[in-house]
């Protein structure tokens, strides 16, 4: 408690200010949190309200927030002018395939880097980490040409197969997770003569379910939102994923803001659904699991 040589008046106002701050802390915290949330939510609100506006309300000044007439046809127009369900299922195929590859391969490699004491482990870990820094543009052209020579551009294989070889980021995440698991069970199983594969399958993987779920979710999102790779490899519009589908919608309709926002809302909806389903893993999984 500070005292002032000036006498009793100053400490009282200082205390008063401190008291006010302390009391205001809670409402101020709410204000801050709400302000931040509003900033992040606002674009979604605009997207939705514009999606329901007829064209003449979109192109008016000053911009109004809510539509006066709610035009649902923007959505049906969006549905009619593009094969939304096909794009959705295409995205699901690509994302699903990549998730499968990731879930199979990345923990496998991570196990090697964390639970098997072998000579090459250190250098290999370093190599995996170093690969994370590789800009995709360096390998993009030769990889495209390889797929082209194989005649597989235009299919989904270039988008899915790389996941089956492990992704450095997920390998690293799994490695960090495995490192936090004690080795007692492993050692006991090894003494009992169990094969390493059995140990991996029956002991490590079940224990690692949360982390595996996390990398599965991340890979899903990665593939779901990927734009560059589908742009390069997918030429047939029927094979487009959602990202390319919306991109094509813009090419077709340009600055037709109402239908464009409606299409954008449609394309956001699956991400929202996935988020609601996997929320547990998103917000808590990445934060806590990776740390333990």
């Amino acid at each position, binding site marked *: 408690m500070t005292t002032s040589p000036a006498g009793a008046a100053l400490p009282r106002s200082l205390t008063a200010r401190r008291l006010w701050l302390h009391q205001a802390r809670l409402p101020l915290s709410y204000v801050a949190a709400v302000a931040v949330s509003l900033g992040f939510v606002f674009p979604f609100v605009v997207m939705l309200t514009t999606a329901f506006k007829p064209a003449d309300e979109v192109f008016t000044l000053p911009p109004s927030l809510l539509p006066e007439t709610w035009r649902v046809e923007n959505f049906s127009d969006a549905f009619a002018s593009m094969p939304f369900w096909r794009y959705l299922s295409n995205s699901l195929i690509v994302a699903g395939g990549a998730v499968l590859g990731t879930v199979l391969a990345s923990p*496998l490699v991570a196990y090697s880097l964390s639970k098997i004491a072998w000579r090459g482990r250190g250098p290999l870990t370093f190599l995996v980490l170093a690969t994370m820094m590789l800009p*995709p*543009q360096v390998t993009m052209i030769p990889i495209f040409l390889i797929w082209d020579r194989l005649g597989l551009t235009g299919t989904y294989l270039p988008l899915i197969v790389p996941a089956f070889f492990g992704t450095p980021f997920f390998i690293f995440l799994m490695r960090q997770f495995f490192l936090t698991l004690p080795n007692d069970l492993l050692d006991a199983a090894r003494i009992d003569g169990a094969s390493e594969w059995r140990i991996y399958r029956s002991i490590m993987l079940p224990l690692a379910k949360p982390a595996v779920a996390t990398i599965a979710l991340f890979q899903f999102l990665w593939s779901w939102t990927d734009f560059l790779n589908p742009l390069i490899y997918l030429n047939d519009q029927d094979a487009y994923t959602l990202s390319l589908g919306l991109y094509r919608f813009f090419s077709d309709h340009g600055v037709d803001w109402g239908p464009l926002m409606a299409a954008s809302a449609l*394309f956001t909806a699956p991400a929202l659904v996935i988020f609601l389903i996997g929320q547990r893993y998103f917000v808590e999984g990445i*934060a806590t699991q*990776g740390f333990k």
Partner: protein
Amino acid sequence: MGDAPRSAAGGSSRQRLEPPAVPAARPTTRPGQRRARRRRLRLGLAFASPWILGFGVFIVAPIALSAYYSFTDFNIFQQPAWVGTDNFTTMFRDDRFWHAAYNTVYLTVVGVPLSLFLALVIAMVLNLPIRGQPVYRAIVYLPSIVPMVVAVYVWRWLLNAQYGYVNDVLRRVGLPQPLWLDDPAWTKPAILVIGFWMVGGTSIIYLAALKNVPKELYEAATIDGAGFFAKFRHVTWPTISPITLFQVVMGVIGSLQIFAQPYLLAQKGFNSAVGGPADSMLTLGTYIFQNAFAQFRMGYASAIAWVLFLVTMAIAAVILVSSRRWVHYDD
């Protein structure tokens, strides 16, 4: 910010970096040890084989090929023709290349620190003891999982100079309203704004890190009479510095290869290859793409990609080396 994801790895005090070795359950005679070591070597390689194979096929071979192509004039329909260092001399004289490099570096140097700062501030707000935290966290996180295409088109509308809401708000508070997407001076800030909106993932990671700071340290600091800023400087910042390092490195790498935001933001009628007003949105990522897939100059594009690669490695190395000064690992 960038296309790379965030990671939760970091230097929490509870993380062990070196696992104990597999205990020797076999007799410690030297042939036995050698056998055991060889067995572990085989196992290690076996489990890591998918990645090792992928490394060869998707990384080593392409890098070597890309290095070769960068010395050739390569139009995909004809055989690559060796031109030596021509691509690099052309690059040196190519205004658009330097422009793209400047734009890319600008986005990185300005964008990464600002995003991290914003992420940290938001994490601290989310860390306040209020009810309904999951809701706020979800709202902050949601934009970062929205497909980039959606985010860009929504912000194109928000940043429209004539009808956009951002300028409307700015006008109401009396601030000048820049032509976000038409003024070369404001297009990069527009790209950054979109990145800031998607900072939720980083924020959540920081939030977890903040929650991991031992409370005793704060209590000790309070007893010592430390105020808010002092506590931040001496307790919070050092503890979260490993995460910051990781985020900085990943953020820089992601930002240097940025592609989707500038490509989509600059998209125009018929989508002829453009780099935005006065090329202000041309980045190395989009320039490489244009050269490779719209101009069929795969040799030149490979050369630029290599330059990007080397610059990325250099910057990452600098950051990692400098990190010794400001990153505190728990002992």
